[in-house]
């Protein structure tokens, strides 16, 4: 605690100094001793080229590069495999702590870390987040399920609710868990890639599904307008005060906690609430993060923090860029430095009681054993 407070104070001081320097010189020559001129920075992306996390990395990388001192080149290297474990391990073993190695982590990299997969050799908690991305998640049904809104979920009778998923311990957990808490008996079909889900949903093979907002807007909203898909609920979104409320991108539909309270008559509490909080943060508030390896010098971290902040501001200012960003990283602004660290920490830090409950739930529901 004291250590991070000390860092915080140091950073504030440095920021003040650099702000003065900027004013005095009229240029952005901050963090003067950090210079990436002619350098080649490698960003490890632990998923295959073309996956949505990869596309967000490819969108951010050049924009970030031109805002770093010395305008280096950021090269993306896909090290896919074993649910992001291959990329994470590679980064842990190889990354040099001098600012020339970065990694983008995905929910599956975080989940495999959280679940202590024996193949994980990386220490996610020691890496330094410099940017975080958050994106609302929306659960919707096929019109063939015959419900008009989320309230209909509770009296489906014995109508089968079929959902495509990849695995119970991946990103799908974020939707399997709330549906189960609501008492919906979901029949999951595992081993599906996201690309196969959309046509399957349209064919009616799956009658409940979910998407992050960017994909929802592009692919599902036309179906909603055409009457073949029904939005049910969002996972919610945390506002500036730290409270979870309706997702501002879809304000017309309830968020999960709201729906739960309405259906059950009492708010979600106890260990399941603690488990839910972490799962929610993983799926919404910290869907992606860009990190530096442990031991990176503070001035390099600061240079990155400054560049990310600059990028966030520039995206807000430029409508065309903002539109692009909405497609690749979602409509919510990226978080920089400490805010990103806070979001990621709440995603990977399960309370002991919450973790024990989740572990038991996975075993009970899906016969999946985690450490």
């Amino acid at each position, binding site marked *: 605690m004291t250590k991070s407070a000390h860092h915080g104070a140091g950073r504030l001081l440095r920021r003040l100094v650099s702000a003065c320097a900027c004013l005095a010189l009229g240029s952005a020559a901050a963090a003067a001793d950090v210079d990436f001129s002619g350098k080649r920075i490698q960003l490890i992306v632990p998923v295959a080229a073309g996956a949505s996390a990869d596309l967000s990395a*490819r969108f951010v990388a050049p924009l970030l590069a031109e805002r770093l001192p010395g305008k280096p080149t950021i090269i993306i290297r896909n090290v896919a495999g074993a649910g992001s474990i291959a990329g994470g*391990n590679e980064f842990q073993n190889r990354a040099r702590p001098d600012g020339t190695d970065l990694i983008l982590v995905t929910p599956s990299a975080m989940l495999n870390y959280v679940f202590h997969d024996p193949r994980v050799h990386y220490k996610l908690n020691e890496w330094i987040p410099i940017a975080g991305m958050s994106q609302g998640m929306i659960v919707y049904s096929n019109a063939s399920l015959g419900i008009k809104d989320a309230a209909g979920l509770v009296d489906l009778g014995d109508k089968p609710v079929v959902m495509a998923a990849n695995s119970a311990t991946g990103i799908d957990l974020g939707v399997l868990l709330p549906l189960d808490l609501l008492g919906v008996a979901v029949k999951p079909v595992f081993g599906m890639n996201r690309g196969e889900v959309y046509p399957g949903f349209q064919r009616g093979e799956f009658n409940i599904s979910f998407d992050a907002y960017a994909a929802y807007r592009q692919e599902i909203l036309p179906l909603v307008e055409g009457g073949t898909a029904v939005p049910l609920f969002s996972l919610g979104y945390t506002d500036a005060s730290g409270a979870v409320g309706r997702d501002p991108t879809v304000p017309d539909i309830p968020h999960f906690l709201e729906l739960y309270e309405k259906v059950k008559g009492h708010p979600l509490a106890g260990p399941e609430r603690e488990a839910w909080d972490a799962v929610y943060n993983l799926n919404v508030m910290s869907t992606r993060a860009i990190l530096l390896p442990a031991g990176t010098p503070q001035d390099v971290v600061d240079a990155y923090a400054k560049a990310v902040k600059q990028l966030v501001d520039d995206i807000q200012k430029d409508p065309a860029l903002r539109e692009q960003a909405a497609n690749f990283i979602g409509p919510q602004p990226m978080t920089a430095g400490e805010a990103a660290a806070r979001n990621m920490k709440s995603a990977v830090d399960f309370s002991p009681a919450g973790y024990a409950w989740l572990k038991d739930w996975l075993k009970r529901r899906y016969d999946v054993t985690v450490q």
Partner: protein
Amino acid sequence: MDAVVLALHELLSIHHLLYLLGGVAVGMVVGVLPGMGGVAGMAMLLPFVYGMEKESALALMIGMLATTATGDTFPSILMGIPGGASSATVLDGFPLARRGEAARALSAAFTSSLLGGVFGSVVLIGCVFVARPLILAIGMGENLLLLIFALSMIGSLTGKSPLKGLAACGIGLLLGSVGSAPATGEVRFTFGTVYLSDGIPLIVLALGVFAIPEIVDLMRQGTTIASVRKLGGGWRDGMIDTFRHWWLVLRVSTIGAVIGILPGLGASTADWLAYGHVVQSARDRSKFGQGDIRGVIAPEAANHAVRGGDLVPTLFFGVPGSGSMALLLGAFILIGIDPGIRMATTELDLTFVIIWSLAIASVIGAIISIILAGPIAKLTLVRYAYLAPLITVLMFFTAYQATQSWGDLLSLLLLCVFGLYLKRFDWPRPALVVGFVLSPGLEAGIYQTAQVYGFSFLERPQALLIVALILLSLGAGILRLVRERRAGPAGSDAEAPSRRAPQLAFSLLLMALLGYALVVAMQTAYLTRLFPAIVAGITFVLILAVAVQQALAPLGSPVLTDHEQTGAEDGRDRPGKLVYLAWFAAFLALVALFGFSIGATLFVVAFISVECGPPLWRSALFGIATLGVLAILSYGLYLEYPRGILADYVALPWWLQ
């Protein structure tokens, strides 16, 4: 129809045409490097696309995507390196090159590419209006049945001993089930490694089972790739071959396009399934694997028709069927194209820019390649001792592109030992690879269809149609077997081996491995072990039957083939195979110490010095050339090579690590 002409007019303006040519150039270069394909090309182009005009960006990207599968035909036919979309081309293309008919094989391949590419474009036009109903009609159940239909072709890939063929297919299915189980996410057969968690990459398997055994044979013979010192009929013959087999081109192009359209099948399987089809449908199959030109035409037409099909779900559904299509979708967002049904209505002009780009790029790529085919085919006249180390380096380079980890190199070394013995004892390797290719889809398809439909998918008319096809295919296979049996025992013309112990020992070893796999599988959850356990059990019984035959049959029987004992493998006076395996192992040891670039250089120098003797400057020259090419590739394409221990102690520039 205005849109059609307008789009062509637009594209033919110098401005856009230049981008198209640029795309073709990138596609050919990326394609020539085996192991790199559309994904690498798209990743390279993506940063340049932002801010470009839509039409130019489309011309650039489609030009590249249309030609990656053209470039990789060169290493497939000339060096026997299955690098990507043209993997199955190796089976007959390389034997043709060895007969001195490389130019003919290349030009047949490129003519087929051209026709396949144009066919794909036509399919794309047809799909503008029917894509949606088509994709909605083919559900999970139909997808599964199509995979079973593909599997039913195995009957014709079995070679002279049907039992051995089926067992090889079973081994392929089992190898394909390595990694995480679709139903549970639990991993099996991975020995706790991260590398095997996603299964063995197809490229590594194809290299180990097909390429390396051929290369080792060549090394032992120590001559040139082309056994005759002339290049046979040139490019004209190849073109004539292709046009003579126009009906075949049409059929395999259809197969390719269908595989492309259905996102579940995976574009990388197109060449293998097309190869399976040509063997199944041929009246005379005796020449396949020894240089039948149809074995070149089929995969090449199919792997180019795939692109047109692949674009259908991408354009009209926003659903990518492959990695390169996923990146293309990202590029669409960057340049402001919204894939979906609009591409068939308000954005039709853009769709036609894509279709024309695909057709024109296929034609240009094929013509350039046909022109280059003659001169490049001369490579097969170079003394093999010079080429062998370079091809070895290229093969490990290719394998490393699969997942960029040391696992790729080590599995290649292991699989090549396996491949050498499969070849020696004449176990049908194409059947093994087709089983491998179909395995993940089959397992996932069976489980997922059962979850969603139970058996009710069989009530759908489109499903029944495919069931009828399966029955036809099986019936034809059985009929042929019966007829061949009646015609008398095949292979009696070949020289008979004198001993049966080595053949039998190999079968027993396979049985032991399968037994081990069964035991390991039993320790996992029910849905994790179900598929591999059933496959392993059936395969065990099949190999047991092979072993019984091997113990009892007369020595001339095809179950007892052993190329080492008979004259089918030349160069028995030269050092044994193990010597060359030791060279490969030594190469990897050098890489582990010094990193790939320097390790490869040392290996090339050492190999040429030993095989060709002095002068040392000649060996050094080859070594320096290797180093130069690897460094330039690494620098220009941002390629990462396997690192050695040296890099931990000495600060090397990244392109030398």
